[in-house]
C-alpha cells in the first residue's frame, strides 16, 4: 500500500473507447496488497480487458470471497456492482446475482485457498451449473493473508519460506475444471499480460462458465527458491502452449497470422478466438486430449499456459446450455419484472402448501 493515492493526472495520449472512457476510468482504489503482488498485475490486466471490450462498468458485477484475492475487486472498476462474500462462497453470490439479472457481466475473483479448500464444493457446482461468469483463480500456492501456509495448490516437494517441504498432493484447478465440464479453461501468468489480457477478454465474452487459473506469485511468502509458484520458477518452466487472440465480431483476423498456423474457434456472439502456434497433436476443442496433454506437460515439469480448452459455440441448444437455459428462465432479467409478478403473494403460497398437506 501507499500513503498517497494514485494521482488522477494521466498521459495526454491516453485514448478513449467508444463509451468515452479511458483505461484510467476502469481503475478502482489503491491496492493495499504487498508491493509486487501478482494479484495487482492481474487487476491491471482485468482493467485493460474491460476497457478494450468497452463494457460499461455499471453493467458489471464483481464478486469475491476471502483472502488476498478477495480484496482485489476493490482495485478495479470502482463503478461496478460488487460483493465481497464469506470464504469460498463467491460462486453462490455470483449465481444469485446472475439469476436475478442475467444481463450483468459477472466476474468472480478467487484464490487457490478460497476455491480449492473451503470453497471447493461451491466451485464444483458453479461449474456444473454453467453460470455465465468469468471465474479467475489467483493462484499463488500459499495462504498469504495468514502468513504463508501451503494451500491446496502447492506442489509436492515445493518448500515454504522457512524451508518446510509440502508432502500433500496438489489440486489442479485446470484439470478439475476440465473434469467438471467447464466450457472454457485457461491458465496464465500474472507476469505475462500479453497472454493474459486476450484470454480475459475471451473469457468475458464466452457464454457459460469460463475459468482462468492465473499463476500469481506471492512476493512476500512464496517467491523463493524451492517455490514452484515464484516469478523465477514460472518463467524458467513456462510453456506457452497455445497463443490465443480474441477477435471481436466485426473485426477481421489480422492477416499477419499465417493461415496454416491458425485455427479459429467461433464464439456464441460471433467473435472468434484465433489460436496460433498450436502443437500439431493438440486440439484445444477436444476435452479428453487437452486433459492428457496437460498431464503430460506437467509430468515434464512444465507450466503449460494459454487458452487450453474452449467449447465451440453450440450448434444446437441441447449442447452446453448455460444456467438460465437449464433453469428455463425468461429472456428478460428478473430484476426488470415488477414485484407483484415475481411474488405470487401469501394467498397463492397458502394454496400451494395446502396441496402438500
Amino acid at each position, binding site marked *: *500500500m*501507499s*500513503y*498517497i*493515492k*494514485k*494521482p*488522477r*493526472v*494521466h*498521459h*495526454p*495520449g*491516453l485514448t478513449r473507447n467508444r463509451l468515452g472512457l479511458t483505461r*484510467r476510468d476502469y481503475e478502482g482504489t489503491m491496492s493495499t496488497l*504487498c*508491493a*509486487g*503482488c*501478482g494479484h*495487482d*498485475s492481474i*487487476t*491491471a490486466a482485468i482493467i485493460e480487458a474491460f476497457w478494450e471490450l468497452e463494457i460499461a462498468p455499471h453493467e458489471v458485477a464483481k464478486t469475491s470471497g476471502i483472502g488476498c484475492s478477495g480484496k482485489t475487486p476493490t482495485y478495479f472498476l470502482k463503478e461496478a456492482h460488487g460483493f465481497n462474500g464469506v470464504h469460498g462462497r463467491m460462486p453462490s453470490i455470483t449465481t444469485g446475482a446472475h439469476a436475478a439479472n442475467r444481463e450483468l457481466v459477472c466476474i468472480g475473483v478467487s484464490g487457490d485457498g478460497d476455491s480449492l479448500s473451503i470453497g471447493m464444493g461451491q466451485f464444483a457446482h458453479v461449474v456444473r451449473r454453467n453460470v455465465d461468469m468469468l471465474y479467475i483463480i489467483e493462484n499463488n500456492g500459499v495462504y498469504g493473508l495468514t502468513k504463508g501456509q501451503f494451500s491446496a495448490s502447492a506442489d509436492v516437494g515445493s518448500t515454504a519460506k522457512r524451508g518446510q517441504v509440502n508432502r500433500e498432493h496438489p489440486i489442479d484447478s485446470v484439470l478439475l475444471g476440465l473434469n467438471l465440464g467447464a466450457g472454457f479453461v485457461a491458465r496464465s501468468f*500474472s*507476469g505475462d*499480460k500479453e497472454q493474459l489480457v486476450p484470454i480475459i477478454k475471451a473469457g468475458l465474452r464466452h457464454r457459460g462458465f469460463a475459468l482462468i487459473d492465473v499463476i500469481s*506469485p506471492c*512476493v*512476500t511468502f512464496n*517467491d523463493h527458491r524451492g517455490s514452484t509458484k515464484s*516469478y*523465477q520458477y514460472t*518463467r524458467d518452466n513456462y510453456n506457452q502452449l497455445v497463443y490465443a487472440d480474441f477477435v471481436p465480431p466485426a473485426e477481421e483476423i489480422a492477416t499477419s497470422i499465417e493461415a496454416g498456423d491458425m485455427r479459429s474457434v467461433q464464439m456464441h456472439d460471433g467473435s472468434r478466438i484465433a489460436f496460433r502456434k498450436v502443437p500439431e497433436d493438440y486440439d484445444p476443442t477436444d476435452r479428453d486430449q487437452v486433459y492428457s496433454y496437460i498431464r503430460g506437460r506437467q509430468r515434464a515439469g512444465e507450466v503449460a499456459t494459454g487458452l487450453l480448452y474452449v467449447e465451440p459455440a453450440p450448434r444446437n441448444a441441447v449442447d452446453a446450455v448455460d444456467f438460465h437455459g437449464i433453469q428455463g428462465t425468461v429472456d428478460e432479467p428478473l430484476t426488470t419484472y415488477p414485484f407483484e409478478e415475481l411474488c405470487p403473494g401469501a394467498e397463492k403460497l397458502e394454496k400451494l402448501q395446502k396441496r402438500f398437506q
Partner: protein
Amino acid sequence: MLKPTDTRNPDHYHRVVDCQWGCPAHTNVPEYIRLIANGQYTESYLLNRKSNIFPGILGRTCDRPCEPVCRRVRLDGEPVAICRLKRVASDLRDDITGFLPTIPEEKNGKRIACIGAGCASLTVANDLLPLGYEVTIFEKLAKPGGLMWTNIPEFRLPAKVLWEEIDYILDMGVDLRLNSPIDSLAALLEEDYDAVFIGSGAPKGKELNLPGRWDSEQIHIGIEWLESVRFGHIDKCGDRVLVIGVGNTAMDCCRTAQRLGASDVKVMARKTKPYFKASPWELEDAIEEQVEILENHSPSRFIIEDGKVVAMEFDLVTWTPGENGRLKAEVHGSKIIECDEVILAIGQDTAFPWIERDIGIDFNKWDMPIVDKTTFMTSVPGVFMGGDAAWGPENIIWGVEHGHQAAISIHAWCEGRPLTDRPPEGMNLISQKMGLHEWSYSNDYDEAQRVKMRHVDLQERFKRLDIEVEEGFDIEQTLTEVERCLNCDIQTHFEADLCIECDACIDICPLDCLTITPNGTEEEVTRRLTAPLLNYPEEPLFISEDLPQTGRIMVKDEDLCIHCGLCAERCPTAAWDMRKSDLLVPYAGLAAGELHPGMSIMDLALNGGAAEGELAGAGAGAEPTGAGAG
C-alpha cells in the same frame, strides 16, 4: 539494440530536471523551491546565489528560460512560477553578508580589468575576488549595473534590491572606476593587467532611418530614453506616445511613458501577436495598464510640423508565407496616427568603436568580434568577452553564465593551464527513502493551478515611477505554488539486477512512463511503449541493462514523470528507488561541488545537515541571523 543509459553521467539526470537544464546557469530550482517550502529562505537565497548571483534581481526580471520547459506545462499547461518563488526567497531572507565568501587579505598578484559594470563583469568579479584576484571594473556611466540599472524601470525592479545585490560584489573589494569609459582597448592592453574581460553589453539602440527621423527632438531611442529617465534627465513626456517595436524594451518604454504623464500610449507592431518578441507576461502587464498594441502597422515616415513630431504614417500590411519560410509583407493602404512623442524600441546592437581593428581581435562579417563559445576568449590571448557584448542581446541570466565561464577561463589563463580543459560537472545521488511509504519530499501530485501574481491597484501604481507593480507572493500563495513543483531532481533510479519483472511499477505509474519489452532497434522499442512518445528525443528515454529473468529491458520515458515515487513504493525489491540527483557545478577555482573556505556550513544546511542555529552562527563576524525564521 539500444544501449543502457549511463546514469552516472550527470547529463542524464540533469536533462530530467527540465528547469535546471533550461537555465543557462543551471540553477538548482527544485532544491531551492523545497527550501522555500520549508521556510528556509536564507538557504534558498544562498543556493540561488551560488549559480545566478542576483536572486533578487532575477526573481523579478529574469527572462525565465526555465519556465516554458517546466514539466508542469506538459501536464496542466502552466509552469511552476519558478521566477516569482525566487523572489520570495530573496524578499524573506535574512542578512546573508556573513555567508559570502571571505576575501583573502593576501592577493595572488594577478590583476584583471573588466570593461562595463553589468551582470557579466560583476559575475567575473564575484568569482575571482575570493581567489585573491584584484579586479578593476571600468564603467562609462555614473553608476554600475549596466542595463539592469539603466533599462529596467523601477516599477519592475526596485533600486534597493538592485543595489543590495550589486553591493555584495562591490564590497568584496572591486576597484570600481565610474565615469571611466574605455576609449581605446589598445591603451588598456598597454597597462599591467593579466587578463581583460569585455562585458560592455549591447548599448546601441537600433535606428529607424525614415523621412523626418532627424527633424524633431521628440523622437527617442528606447534604451537611451529609459536611461535618461533612470538618471532623472527626463521626468515627463507628451500626451500621445507611439512606441515602435514590440519587444521587452518596448514594454518598459510604454509603461514608463504611462507613468510620465502620457494618457494615450500605442505600441506599434509590424507583425501579429505570435511574432511579438516581448515575453508573454510582459505583454500581459502592458495590456493590463491599458496600453494599446496595434498589429500590422509598418512605419513609413515621421510627420513633422515646426520641428515637432505630430504624427507618423504607417503602411497597413498583411503577411503571407513567402519563400524559405519567411513572411512576405503586402501593403494595402496607409494610416496616419497623431502623436506628441515617438520612442524607437526595435532592438539593440553591440558597439565597439573603441576596439582598434589592428590589435589582433578578429571581427566577423557583421562586425562582431569572434569569441570562442567554450573559453570566451577573443583572438587576442588574455582578452575575454561575455554577456551581450559577445553575441548580441540576450538576458541577465545568460550574462551571468558567461561571467562564470569567463572566470573559469581567466583563472586557468592566469595559472597557465589550457583553457579548453573545462572542469567537469559532478553529481551526488542520494536515496530519499525515509520509511516504508515515506519520502523526504512532498511526493503527491498537487492539482492546484498556477498562482496569479497580485498587482498594485491600477490607479495607485501610476502615482510614482518607483512603485513596484508586482506585490510578490504572500505566504499562502507561496505554499500553494511550491507544491506544484514536481521535484524532478528526485529521480526514479533503477537497478536492473534487482528487478523480478512483476510489473507492479508499470501498473501503478499514473503517467504510463514505464515499459518492459525485448530490446531491439530504437524504432522497434519506441513503438512498443506503454504510452506514445510525445517529446522524444528532447525528453530522454531511460534504457536499463538486461533484466535478469527474461533478458528484456526496462524503458522509461522521462517526459511526463511526476516523480510521485509510486514505482519505488510498489517495487518489492527496491529495484526502483527515489534518489536526489544533485548536480555539482564547477566555478573558477572550485571543482564541482567544492565551496570557498568557511562556507561548508551553508552546504551542510542545504543538505539538511545543520540546524538553524548552526547556520545562524556560522558567518564569521556576522550578526546571528536566525536563518529560516520568517
